[in-house]
């Protein structure tokens, strides 16, 4: 059995698209329960304590962006998902542990997807024009670079999370996006998004995409805050119907070609 898994491991590493892998634990008693325990430790931080999603996609829907076969789920856990925050677990988890996770995910799948009611075409206009979101966010190579790139955000975030991110941007920050405010010794104030931060230095980018690097000892003050630089007035800006359109647009950003 061990040899089979080792071969499977090699196949997963070499050729992620192949789907010949079969879940050897699909009908094994207790595998889903062990997967649940593992899930809480390895996955819940992003996918929620019950897989309901959050920072990471909702995994209770039964549809997965990487494909719906057991092997597809295995491969995503093993290799990670390039271009997203999903890391590779192949070096950290044994193949059988990954299969237990797959078995667990199968056991919680099937909850009906939250319906996306709005019109994505109208949402696109609201995003680029009324909301001016492209000043800071980039989609398919167009837009600003101070905020997170949203090209695949519909795959990365649950609908509920997207809604909260629009209405209350500081509720939960994307990793690596705290706000830094530096006051120089001559009193100049520079605010931007963190690019790097340690005890002795800070690097940041402001809204004009200027890059700055300072030693902490050379400036008057450095403040790091876990709040977003994104305006928090979108609830006032977008009536509920428009918000619904905007969310439909965001939920449809799945990394495929997007025409403006």
């Amino acid at each position: 059995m061990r040899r089979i898994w080792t071969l499977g491991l090699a196949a997963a590493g070499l050729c992620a698209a192949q789907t010949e892998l079969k879940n050897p634990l699909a009908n094994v008693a207790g595998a889903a329960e062990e997967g649940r325990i593992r899930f809480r430790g390895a996955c819940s931080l992003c996918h929620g304590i019950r897989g309901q999603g959050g920072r990471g996609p909702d995994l209770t829907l039964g549809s997965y962006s990487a494909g719906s076969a057991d092997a597809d789920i295995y491969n995503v856990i093993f290799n990670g998902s390039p271009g997203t925050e999903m890391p590779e677990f192949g070096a950290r988890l044994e193949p059988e542990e990954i299969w237990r996770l797959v078995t667990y995910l199968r056991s919680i799948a099937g909850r009906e997807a939250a319906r996306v009611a709005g019109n994505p075409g109208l949402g696109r206009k609201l995003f680029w024009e009324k909301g001016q979101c492209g000043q800071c966010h980039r989609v398919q190579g167009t837009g600003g670079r101070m905020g997170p790139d949203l090209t695949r955000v519909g795959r990365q975030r649950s609908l509920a999370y997207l809604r909260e991110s629009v209405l209350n941007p500081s509720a939960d920050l994307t990793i690596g996006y705290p706000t830094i405010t530096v006051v120089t010794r001559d009193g100049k104030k520079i605010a931007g998004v963190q690019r790097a931060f340690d005890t002795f230095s800070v690097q940041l980018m402001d809204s004009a995409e200027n890059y700055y690097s300072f030693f902490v000892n050379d400036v008057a003050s450095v403040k790091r805050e876990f709040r977003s630089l994104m305006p928090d007035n979108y609830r006032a800006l977008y009536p509920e119907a428009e918000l619904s359109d905007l969310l439909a647009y965001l939920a449809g950003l799945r990394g495929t070609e997007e025409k403006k």
Partner: protein
Amino acid sequence: MMVCKVLSFAALMVSAAGAAEITRQQLANAQTDNASWLTYGRNFSGWRHSDLRQINASNVAQLVPQWMFQTGVQGKFETTPLVFDQMMYVTGPTNHAWALDLRTGRQIWHYYQPLPKGVSICCGQVNRGFAVLGEKLFKVNLDAKLLALDVKTGNVLWETEIDSIKKGYSATVAPLVAKNLVLVGVAGAEYGVRGFIDAYHADTGRRAWRFWTVPGPGEPGNETWGGDSWKYGGGSTWITGAYDPELNLTYWGTGNPGPDWNGDVRPGDNLYTDAAVALDVDTGKLKWHFQFTPHDTHDWDAISDLVLVDVVRNGQKIKGVVQANRNGFFYLLDRTNGKFLLARQYTKVTWADGIDPKGRPILIAGQDPSEEGTKSCPSVGGGHNWQATTYSPQTGWYYFTTTEGCQIYYKTFQEFREGQLYTGSTGSPILMEPATGAVLAVDPATGDTKWKFETVTPPTSGLLSTAGGLVFAGDREGYFLALDARTGKVLWKFQTGGMVIAPPITYQFNGRQYVAVAAGAAMMTFALPGKP
């Protein structure tokens, strides 16, 4: 000129001939041997303090790199290198080890044993270093093996299985040599193992004794475990103990009870988890124990260094042992009998309202893990974790790193299955409240904080103090630092380019003092400018 060269070469040959044999006497005198670093904690008391002062507070700003050895091995380097007879001996992750030429950093030999499948490792494929006696270097492999390597070649002289990986055991600890015995502990409390401390004969690898950190039926302490829970009780022993030759006792900290976050299935105090145990070196018999966190539900292993320090309290000299426990309190005990002397909170704590006069935590309700998650402080890694600490007899202060943060603790019910993760759920960091940290200087007699150097993330490295009035530390972002031992002021820093997790060491070679530390996947040395 040519004559001079030949002569110096001959002199070197003489100094090297017959070397590389470390005696029990040398280990006993390790503190005064400035040319060497012979045991995990530098001396048996675990001080990690060097009497060298060539590098000192007035000149450390000039410190520059001397050589760097790129191992090419991925993973966390937690090794304390050993140094003697012109060589540095370094262990790395995933069963790697090297002998490096002290002059140049060139590799002399490399040991590697591929990791077999099926080893359960919760927290990285790490190793914390060698021990030495005679011409043998001792190390554990992750797959719960203890080995003796030939100091000259790295060849395996003997190898013994500590216990079965199928049961969830693994090993990461640097062994401790006491008399002719090699003492080791095990990891695996996240897999429902039953912890122990073992002693092996240095010459043969034959086991001399075993002390179970979770007592079996009929043994004192077994009554502190409800039902059969003792069988999976944890109490791993993954950080090297200390040794008092006068008292003939060895002191080890024990890890969390299993499962970590669900205490419902193991009613009782769960002895001897989260405790300090003092064992007779010859027999492994328990002399005393002190449990820091009875019935722990937060994963607060008591494995942090147990450092043997003599202090004066109320005019009376006391043979003490100190620990900065993961549970957020600094402790001083009498090491002759385990008597509780004091505890002082050193970081944010929400689970206990202090420690009572007998040494037992005064619990705050509502702080246990729950199905929906409970915010509690310190975080799972504790206020201070395993990172090596240092005691400076020059300042009389004890130095350790801290984590200032909280975590969400989850609980769930879980069936035990041999070799499988058995934690009773998880702890989850609070992403919007990332932990910060500090290096602390504490008076061991009172627990008073003398200074605090704050860092934006918890410092990851171990510490070293020197008679040059310095404390060396490293951080997550790759900085290696020298702090003023009296004030905590940063006197020097170097960006190593890799996380500094390992403890620094220091030694004198050819008249110059070096400081060495592993950072990222490299071993590097520093000295004042001059001819190597």
